């Protein structure tokens, strides 16, 4: 099981700040998560925005990053400071 976190305005799209799910078997790389989330939340492209970054277990990764049963994945819109 993996925690998926939706930060900032993404939680408005998903209706929740996080969820704990079994990753589908066809989600093998970070880029697959974007299309998976797009479809899951009918997100009108927000998960495909290049400024929305993906962090796996607390580390920012690029789209080509392979996913090996991660504990925690975060979708991060641009951070704006406090």
């Amino acid at each position, binding site marked *: 099981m993996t925690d998926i976190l939706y930060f900032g305005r993404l939680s408005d799209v998903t209706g929740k700040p996080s969820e704990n799910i079994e990753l589908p078997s066809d989600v093998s790389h970070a880029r697959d998560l974007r299309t998976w989330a797009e479809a899951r939340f009918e997100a009108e492209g927000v998960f495909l925005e290049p400024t929305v970054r993906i962090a796996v277990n607390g580390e920012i990764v690029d789209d080509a990053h392979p996913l090996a049963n991660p504990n925690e994945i975060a979708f991060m819109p641009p951070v704006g*400071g406090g």
Partner: protein
Amino acid sequence: MSVHVNISDQAISTPELLKDFESRLTSSGGVVSFSGVVRPDGKDSRVLGLFLQSYSPMTENGIETAVGQALNRWPLEALAVHHRTGEIRTGETIVFVATASKHRRAAFEAADFLMDYLKTEAVFWKKEITEAGDFWIEPREQDYQDNQRWQQSETN
């Protein structure tokens, strides 16, 4: 050398934090503090408060990296960063930074530098709660420019 970094959803009392900060000093001539207070005037309508999200430990790690840069760059005796998260009402303090050095210029510049980091690059997501509704706020161009100053003066 005394360094405190704290991120919490508890209220910030600037005078109490400053008192605590000063009590740890022995040799500093200058102490600078900055506190940021939630302002009532939003872009379009009256702001009732903010909701601030952090992502632990990424938020803390980022602040500690900026703290390390400040310590490398200025001769500081002590440094404190307290940042609040969660729901913060207008008029309440969202951030407190304090720096202490033998030299006042170092204390001023280090506090200014840390505030620029905290206002532009720090890992926070911020929602304004206004009379007209709630709005997520992403970075302003001015904030990037402010932060840019420090990189320029390093290469010049």
